[in-house]
């Protein structure tokens, strides 16, 4: 199969909106980078910041398939789980293997891609909602294997004592190192998705999302492009897995349940489906709010479920849709308000 023009430079120059986003994102990443040395946050705050960056990276990956291509993946966390378990198996005492993380990250992405390819291919030729059920089933199967293939995954107990990440001969110890590693992953995802969204591929995805029949009629190879979105997203989740597993020194089946997939999905749709800023905002909100509901897992998911329904009915485009200019719009609204009150 010939790959689409993924690495071909985009024909169009950056659109002004995208350039603004890229600048805003650079500022955001810089702010995030100085956070640990700013003295503003303690260890608990750093852990929270790590969680936000981690979930934002996952949400950006899921946004590729749900937001850009309009396909529902309900087993997304399974790809993350495949990545995390790959590192856990290859870099722990489970089999006495100790592969370096720099090697395992691309390998994990590759394995996740292969699984994504295998299971998405039969369904992508059909209606989009079949994919939702197949991915739901896939997520359940990966969880089942994590629980039952005891020889490989250590079953329900999970794998402990995973090697810390070593980069350029330096061993990462403590949360700060992993925070920066995850931030690099997030930055890669941010610029990759911004660039992809504005490219020929991104515009083809948008066409498929809006009207698949029309997209096909305009000569877009819809199956191939949907497959690309799905596998890229799986690869992103697969690559994040090893970083997370190394940071916790542990991975277990409880961390890759359907609930986690649903949580990341809610981040994407709450923030604004298809929007890079939205996915990040969604991660911030849904990491911070559940802190208050921590002891009530069920209550938390009632809130998550209700949020999904309400967003779809009241504001299906999410809090910050892709082309919104929240600050500019707010200023304009204030200005118009002033005009009204001034007249009265």
């Amino acid at each position: 199969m010939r790959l689409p023009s993924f690495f071909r430079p985009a024909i169009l120059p950056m659109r002004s909106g995208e350039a603004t986003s890229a600048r805003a994102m650079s500022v955001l990443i810089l702010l995030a980078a100085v956070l640990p040395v700013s003295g503003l946050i303690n260890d608990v705050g750093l852990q929270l910041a790590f969680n936000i960056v981690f979930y934002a990276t996952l949400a950006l990956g899921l946004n590729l398939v749900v937001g850009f291509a309009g396909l529902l993946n309900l087993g997304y966390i399974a790809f993350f789980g495949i990545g995390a378990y790959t590192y856990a198996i290859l870099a722990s005492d489970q089999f006495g293997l100790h592969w370096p993380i720099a090697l395992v990250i691309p390998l994990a992405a590759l394995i996740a891609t292969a699984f994504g390819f295998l299971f998405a291919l039969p369904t992508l030729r059909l209606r989009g909602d079949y994919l939702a059920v197949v991915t739901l089933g896939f997520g359940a199967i990966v969880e089942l294997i994590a629980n039952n293939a005891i020889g490989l995954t250590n079953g329900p107990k999970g794998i402990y004592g995973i090697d810390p990440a070593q980069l350029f001969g330096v061993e990462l110890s403590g949360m700060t190192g992993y925070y920066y590693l995850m931030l690099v992953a997030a930055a890669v995802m941010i610029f990759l998705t911004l660039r992809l969204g504005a490219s020929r591929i991104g515009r083809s995805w948008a066409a498929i999302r809006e009207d698949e029949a029309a997209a096909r009629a305009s000569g877009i190879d819809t199956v191939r492009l949907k497959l690309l979105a799905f596998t890229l997203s799986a690869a992103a989740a697969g690559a994040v897995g090893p970083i997370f597993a190394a940071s916790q020194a542990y991975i277990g089946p409880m961390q890759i349940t359907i609930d986690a997939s649903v949580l990341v999905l809610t981040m994407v749709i709450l923030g604004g489906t298809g929007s890079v800023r939205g996915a990040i905002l969604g991660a911030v909100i849904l990491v911070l709010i559940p802190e208050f509901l921590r002891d009530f897992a069920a209550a938390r998911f009632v809130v998550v479920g209700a949020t999904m329904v309400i967003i779809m009915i009241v504001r299906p485009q999410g809090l910050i849709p892709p082309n919104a200019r929240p600050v500019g719009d707010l200023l304009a609204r204030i200005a118009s308000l002033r005009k009204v009150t001034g007249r009265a």
Partner: protein
Amino acid sequence: VEQLPGALINGLTLGSVYALIALSYTMVYGVLRLINFAFAGLFTVGAYGAIYFVGALGLGTPATLPAALLLVGLGLGVAMLVAGVVGVAVERVAYFPLRRSKSILAPLISALGMSLVLVNGLQLIAGTEPKFFPSVLQETVTIAGIRMTGIQLLVIPLSLALMAVLYVFVTKTSLGLKIQATSENLETAQLMGISVNRTIMLVFFIGSALGGAAGLLYTLYYGVAIPTMGFGPSIKAFTAAILGGIGNIPGAMLGGLLLGIAESLVSTYVSAATGGALGPNYQDVFVFLILIAVLTFRPQGLLGERLRTK
């Protein structure tokens, strides 16, 4: 080999429960082209409704066979009513406002959200610990050399009867014709003077009631109910609906029964066939592989017509 009749009976029992839920999926999919993820919750809500109702009446384990049958009948009625009413409420709240939505994503996400609300809401109200329906019909009987429990003897004909009633209702009554017309073409049905709204609510009521009945039968078969128990059966029932041909009522029945039998055979024999390398827990993997295989080789299902992509 001596396990075969038992495995078949187990498979038929599970399969008839799957068939009931598959019918719910198929009916809703038929009229709205929507996968109603909320069935995972409605299944459990129905079972819990019956358990609480029977508990509130202070009914314990019945002593005689007629009393036991009466208790199951009462439980089924309550389960179907509760699930049906909640199902219609779900349709009003979560799907009706999105009926004109162009995106196929929005109703799916809304359905998923509703399923979370139902399952976790139930967990908040009823707690996570298992609940029990009074144990009935636990005696085993041997018919033609096959041992089965009274429950199995009840579940299979009862599900078949429900399916038969549904089939007659949809094909022979005027309300059923309205459902058929609506699922054929919503706009045209409306132009013909059919109240599409009322028909869709009816479909949701019937579908959810079947789901609730399935929930109680499943509870009777396994002896306990927990809030998350709907997840597995609902994925399997969806597989069954696709296997039979989604939107097709006899297909859903056939798909459910076949899937139940396949699952039971796999869980009985796979462990021995692989020398214990794969335990009976892996039956779900095989169900999933069946789903993938059907979607690859015969996406329209065994009895279905080819579905258009949009």
